[in-house]
């Protein structure tokens, strides 16, 4: 017996039982049967044809008008069959796209994954969580000689285009020569790359900094990036870590201002993406002071624990629904 014959027989059974005693039970079985039809991808006009076939057998003396009316119904169902098949084909396509995005996302993760380096003088903590499948935030650590450089970037724009753009930034940064590791010069270089290669409706903000352990100096520059914080241990105070500069990709000739800061024992440099400060709770956006208060709350823990705890609290505040990619980095001078 073919699958179709089995269906015909089942339909005939159900229908004749129903016609004898019109019970809710049989109707319920009919509803379950329709699920089976969908599973087997039976289209609407096939079901009508099945009905006609069964009616022919149950009522061989059916009036001709009745019989003809079924043919008319069949013809009228063809459009629904069209729509049904188009729906199936679009659904297949969507599944295919989704699995492709899945692959791309995991590829991006592998490509952009930056190991947090071991660095004797600094205690480093990082958390970076995408809001959707692909992360539009990017962070990168590079150890070169004795110094450590750190970059945080955010694409204005979300999803796949942002992620593709991020990959380009990574390779542009990797290919810059090491002597250009001075933050403001690096930004100028990247700015030219972005201006030339990225569509004008996409902008990238970036913060770049280099810590030199001999001088205990932190050199930095910013391209329109969300300001981080600087914690001055001696005063026990948090300050905004402001680095002014135009976002990358606006104008080819943009220059960036070099900044530097002395880092003393116990001081912290806190870098973030706007996903941290644009956390939205039922009361509206959270304030930068609230982020500071959270950091202060966990300040005595190792850096990695601080960022993880801050993320967990903000995530909980938002009902575990991140609206934007979230990146938070803390560098604390140990010795």
């Amino acid at each position, binding site marked *: 017996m073919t699958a179709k014959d089995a269906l015909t027989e089942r339909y005939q059974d159900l229908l004749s039982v129903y016609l004898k005693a019109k019970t809710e039970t049989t109707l319920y079985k009919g509803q379950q049967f329709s699920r089976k039809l969908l599973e087997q991808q039976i289209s609407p006009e096939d079901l009508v044809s099945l009905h006609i076939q069964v009616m022919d057998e149950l009522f061989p003396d059916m009036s001709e008008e009745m019989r003809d009316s079924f043919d008319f119904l069949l013809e009228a169902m063809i*459009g629904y069959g069209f729509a049904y098949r188009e729906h199936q*084909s679009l659904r297949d396509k969507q599944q295919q796209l989704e699995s492709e995005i899945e692959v791309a996302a995991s590829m991006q993760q592998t490509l952009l994954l930056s190991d947090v380096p071991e660095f004797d003088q600094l205690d480093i903590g990082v958390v970076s969580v995408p809001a959707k499948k692909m992360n539009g935030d990017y962070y990168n650590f590079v150890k070169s000689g004795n110094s450590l450089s750190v970059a945080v970037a955010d694409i204005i724009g979300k999803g796949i285009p942002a992620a593709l753009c991020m990959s380009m930034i990574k390779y542009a940064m990797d290919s810059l020569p090491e002597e250009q590791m001075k933050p403001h010069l690096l930004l100028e270089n990247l700015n030219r790359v972005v201006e030339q290669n990225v569509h004008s409706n996409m902008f990238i903000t970036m913060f770049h900094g280099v810590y030199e352990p001999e001088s205990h100096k932190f050199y930095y520059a910013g391209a329109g990036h969300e300001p981080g914080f600087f914690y001055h241990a001696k005063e026990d105070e948090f300050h905004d870590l402001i680095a002014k500069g135009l976002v990358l990709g606006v104008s080819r000739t943009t220059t960036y201002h070099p900044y530097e800061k002395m880092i003393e024992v116990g001081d912290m440099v806190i870098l973030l993406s706007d996903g941290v400060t644009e956390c939205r709770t039922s009361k509206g956006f959270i304030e930068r002071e609230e982020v500071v208060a959270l950091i202060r709350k966990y300040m005595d823990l190792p850096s990695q624990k601080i960022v993880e705890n801050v993320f967990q609290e903000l995530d909980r505040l938002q009902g575990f629904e991140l609206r934007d990619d979230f990146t938070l980095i803390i560098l604390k001078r140990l010795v």
Partner: protein
Amino acid sequence: MDIQSCVEVRNEWDIVSARQLGRNMAKELGFGNVDQARITTAISELARNIYLYAGRGKICIEPIDQLGRKGLRIVALDNGPGIREIRKVMEDGYTTSGGLGAGLPGVKRLMDEFSIESTVDVGTEISATKWLR
């Protein structure tokens, strides 16, 4: 009936004639009622495309027999503007002609075999086959 029969398509009434021709032949070949309805719908769509986009053309229906395998072939011919981007018109959701909103991908799904050839400013030839199961 193994010679090709054609219907000229110039107005909406000719679509009905093309359907009638297709249905008669499908019935004669032994297609069931669902397949008859699918074949005539495919003919409707193709004839409608001719009427809407080429102005005039013809629909030919022929029975086929390949090594004992029987079927029916619809050929839609026109000397209209042709289709610049065939790949586009074969995408779901591209068509805007109204009708059933099914377009060429719908026709392709209704039939077993489907091929299209089109040259800009020369015309379009679409052929679609349904096999008797």
